[in-house]
């Protein structure tokens, strides 16, 4: 506008409010510098102006004479209103500078701020210090503890009033909400917030940036100016796929993909998603191990699922008969019992009588280049010669590992308790860095039965330690050690402890602890799936339930199906019954149910060839009418052929011959393509494959007069990751399961 105003203290017979036109003044001053600029309008004769502000483009509001608010309308030759005309299309606030309020007219004249947001449809007066003028409806009073220095409306945000009090470091922001609800008028809700633009220094004034959102300049008492942006309150959300979204102000959303999140590698949600895609938990234990090479524990535990009842070593040892000691070599006392034998097998060391397990383990370790571990195991099994051979071999493979030096030292072993060798090894072994080499020497130099150094070494594999303890500790010490170790490991949620606990009560506590610490519900579900799905404990059921829910969230329905299949395979007792039936439209009887009952003796042919032929015949002999009432089945809307199913026929025949089951899994049942399917709304339908083909190009029902949008009613287009082949594999699987269940 180029119009400037000034409020003045009263001087006699002068105006309190002066209005200049800057543009004109500039023009004038360039013309003749000498001519003084004159205000275009002079208002408020002999009055003291405390505060003023523009109220719309052509009117001014002023606080005058300690008591009045005056509005001057400049369009109409400076008409003055005393007080605020009703229905004035703006709202403003004014501040009362005094501590006490007189009863008569408003004293809120020291600061005035007009809300610049023209979108406001109602007006409201807010005076500072909770001053209310009863003559004005919708006036709100806020009380501050100290006199107000400045109030103003935020120019970029509606309803946001800011207020600074004297000697204060904080600016208060009031977010005013009000709903026009007619006669049932509501108190405006005011959300209060404080900001400290100067980090604690006292703020003397501030000013909003006219266009940048929520930005202000604040000036301190020491005249430091700070550019400050009021941070809007941020709201945020996580998605199922670990995307994070948050808001910024009123305009922007930011989202962040999981890969960009810090420590993405460490994020169990992402890990589980990735592993689920790799079919983790659905494969054989060995493949699972490949998928989760970074969770080595799993391989250990899943190696032994064939153990009866999944008993742990701890319970084996607890219940085992007392052991007797045998002394295979002159120096070491070895304890033998059946329980120890089993434990040693569980740990992979094999039994004492049969060295082949151990030999193959050593071989595997060498292949994995774990030479020191292999050597240590050989030493623990009192085969020094083998250990030296392994170390030498390791040296050949890695010349700079100096394993041959170790081998040399080892070769000097003598059982003599007082030898120099022993003395030197005892003193030097602490300098060794490799835990296994260290353990070799502590083993060879230790007094009988004093193996704490090895048993408490956390760098040695737990199964090696357990197997070692089973060989060299007496019954009492062994039990003590195992109990101690298992409670420590359970506390740590270390899955390797599954060796000790088995999968009964303690094992579940261990899995629970692991889950509590890691959140890895996938691994525990996989463990339960491959071991004890029929377990009645509520905890495993809950884990699996949560994992299935996760798969749902990730839209991995095929994997979820496969998981369910494996799950129900494990507990046929809880096998879900048939949930979908096809019933005849005329008599209401189930079509497939009836077929199942047809002539059971025909289902036991003399030989496999006979059954095969019968099966071929069944394929041709399609059921095109209801077996109960002989009324025809409905026609497929597309090919107009009668629909029919013979899946039920096959179910009734018991096992097909093994050859057909393996070689020709697909053809032994009705193909999914020719299954019934129909729209739940318009009840039109046909063969699955025909309908799928139809809806690839159409969205309406194939029946000519029907306007039903069957496909879009089904919410989404056909998910691209589910092919009809995938569905048929799953369904076929269900059928074969069903056969097995029914034939039992």
């Amino acid at each position, binding site marked *: 506008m180029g119009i400037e105003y000034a409020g003045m203290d009263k001087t006699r017979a002068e105006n309190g409010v002066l209005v200049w036109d800057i543009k004109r003044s500039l023009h004038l001053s360039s013309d003749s510098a000498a001519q003084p600029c004159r205000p275009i309008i002079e208002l408020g004769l002999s009055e003291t102006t405390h505060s003023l502000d523009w109220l719309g483009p052509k009117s001014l509001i002023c606080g005058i004479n300690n008591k009045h608010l005056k509005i001057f309308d400049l369009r109409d030759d400076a008409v003055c209103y005393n007080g605020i005309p009703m229905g004035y299309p703006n709202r403003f606030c004014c501040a009362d500078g005094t501590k006490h309020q007189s009863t008569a007219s408003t004293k809120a004249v020291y600061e005035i701020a007009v809300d610049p947001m023209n979108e406001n449809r109602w007006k409201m007066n807010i005076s500072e210090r909770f001053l209310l003028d009863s003559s004005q409806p919708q006036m709100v009073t806020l009380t501050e503890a100290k006199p107000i220095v400045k109030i103003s409306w935020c120019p970029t*945000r*509606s309803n946001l009033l800011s207020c600074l009090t004297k000697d204060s470091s904080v600016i208060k922001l009031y977010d005013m*909400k009000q*709903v026009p609800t007619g006669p049932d008028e509501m108190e405006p*809700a005011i959300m209060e*917030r404080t*900001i400290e633009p100067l980090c604690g220094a006292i703020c003397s004034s501030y000013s909003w940036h006219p266009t940048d959102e929520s930005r202000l300049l604040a000036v301190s008492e020491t005249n430091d100016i700070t550019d400050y*942006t009021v*941070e*809007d*309150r*941020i*709201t*945020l*959300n*996580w*998605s*199922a*796929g*670990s*995307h*994070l*979204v*948050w808001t*910024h*102000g*009123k*305009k*922007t*959303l*930011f*989202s962040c993909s999981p890969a*960009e*999140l*810090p420590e993405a590698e460490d*994020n169990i*949600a992402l890990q*589980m998603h990735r592993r689920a895609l790799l079919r983790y938990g659905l494969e054989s234990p060995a493949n699972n191990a490949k998928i989760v090479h970074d969770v080595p524990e799993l391989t250990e535990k899943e190696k032994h699922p064939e153990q009866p009842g999944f008993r742990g070593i701890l319970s084996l040892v607890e219940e085992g008969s007392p052991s007797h000691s045998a002394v295979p070599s002159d120096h070491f006392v070895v304890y033998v019992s059946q329980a120890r034998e089993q434990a040693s097998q569980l740990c992979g060391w094999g039994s004492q009588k049969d060295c082949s397990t151990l030999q193959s383990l050593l071989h595997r370790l060498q292949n994995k280049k774990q030479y020191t571990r292999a050597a240590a195991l050989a030493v623990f099994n009192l085969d020094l010669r083998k250990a030296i051979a392994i170390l030498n071999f390791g040296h050949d493979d890695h010349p700079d590992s100096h394993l041959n030096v170790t081998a040399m030292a080892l070769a000097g072993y003598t059982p003599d308790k007082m030898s120099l060798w022993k003395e030197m090894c005892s003193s030097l072994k602490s300098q060794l860095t490799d835990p296994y080499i260290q353990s070799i020497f502590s083993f060879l130099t230790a007094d009988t039965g004093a193996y704490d150094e090895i048993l408490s070494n956390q760098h040695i594999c737990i199964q090696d330690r357990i197997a070692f303890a089973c060989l060299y500790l007496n019954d009492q010490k062994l039990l003590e050690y195992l109990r101690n170790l298992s409670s420590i490991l359970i506390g*740590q*949620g270390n899955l390797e402890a599954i060796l000790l606990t088995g999968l009964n009560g303690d094992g579940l506590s261990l899995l*629970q602890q692991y*889950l509590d*610490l890691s*959140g890895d*519900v996938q691994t*525990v579900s996989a463990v339960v799936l491959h071991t004890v799905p029929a377990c009645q404990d509520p*905890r495993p059921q*809950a*884990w699996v*339930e*949560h994992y299935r829910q996760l798969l*749902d*969230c*990730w839209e991995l329905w095929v994997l979820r199906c496969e998981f369910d299949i494996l799950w129900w395979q494990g507990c046929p007792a809880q096998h879900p019954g048939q949930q979908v039936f096809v019933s005849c439209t005329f008599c209401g009887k189930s079509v497939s149910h009836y077929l199942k009952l047809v002539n059971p003796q025909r289902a036991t042919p003399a030989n496999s060839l006979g059954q095969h032929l019968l099966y071929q015949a069944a394929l041709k002999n399609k059921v095109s009418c209801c077996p109960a009432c002989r009324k025809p089945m409905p026609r497929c809307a597309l090919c107009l052929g009668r629909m029919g199913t013979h899946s039920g026929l096959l179910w009734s025949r018991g096992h097909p011959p093994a050859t057909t089951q393996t070689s020709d899994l697909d053809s032994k049942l009705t193909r999914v393509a020719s299954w019934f399917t129909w729209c739940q709304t318009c009840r039109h339908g046909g063969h699955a494959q025909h309908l799928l083909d139809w809806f690839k190009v159409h*969205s309406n029902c194939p029946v000519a007069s029907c306007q039903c*949008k069957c*496909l*879009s009613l089904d*919410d989404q*287009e056909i998910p691209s990751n589910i092919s009809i082949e995938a569905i048929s594999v799953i369904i076929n699987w269900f059928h074969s399961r069903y056969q097995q269940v029914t034939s039992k």
Partner: protein
Amino acid sequence: MFVQLTLNADHKDLIHDVAYDFYGKRLATCSSDQTVKVWDMGEDGQWHNTASWKAHCGSVWKVTWGHPEFGQVLATCSFDRTAIVWEELVTDETNRDKSQWLKRTTLVDSRTSVTDIKFAPKHLGLQLAICSTDGSIRIYEAPDVMNLSQWSLLHEISCKISCSCMSWNPSRVHPPMIAVGSDDTTNAAGPKVLIYEFNENSRRWVKSETIPSVFDPVNDIAFAPNLGRSYHLLSVATKELRIFSIKQQRDLNAALQTTLPKLEIKGVAKLEEHSTQVWRVCWNITGTILASSGDDGTVKLWKANYRGVWKCISTLKGDPKLDKSLA
């Protein structure tokens, strides 16, 4: 820290809530400008605004998605004292970039501003809980999930304290549980987080615990997805960020008792790194990472290490572009 997507939501006023649907493929935002917007992830990997409508005649505080099993359902609550359930109208496949949302029901029982709205976990059926500043939690149910226009008021719980936020316990192995936070400033010594449980025997919601040690106004509250853990995690956004673990004491005689087993509540973490009011909290899908936003204009991510110590693993600037320009 790089941001993959920036989305111009173009609301006319502050966005109060943003919500992903069950699969993370749709977004809903609500704002003080009284509108709700729905965004769909397109095949190009960008969010497209597919619907935008004036939902209320007051600021819309919260928006939340129903479980997809019940259809495409949104619920909003507002300063105008109502909560509304919306359902997407299935339209022509060819016109998927614009969808239409129908108002199915308006819940008008509250006499004051409705501050939070949450669907119950799916296993409880189609239930909806709202809390309002008059200190009431109201739980509604749609008895017929096919008919979203009929909701009956099942329970009305009086908390006697102005409620600002609430959260359902998502676990299905425990009785239904709701935590409520209050932003009440009048009673500085009163507890601000209350936990209610549903008692199967008396078929009523009863207050089972109050969380001690939280006396400051609570801005947001969230239960972590349980995932089969033996305890529940509850995060509370107040003057600082607090995390509590809630464990149901295992009692074998629980079935015989008329009262619910006692809850064991432990403070797990008190995180003050926002150094201002914490405004919002949200858990990731596994309940292992907590995201919080504060008045300092940052988003912080928190994670517990193996010993259960919660640490800030990342700080994101509210406006990452500003951050980059400074760097």
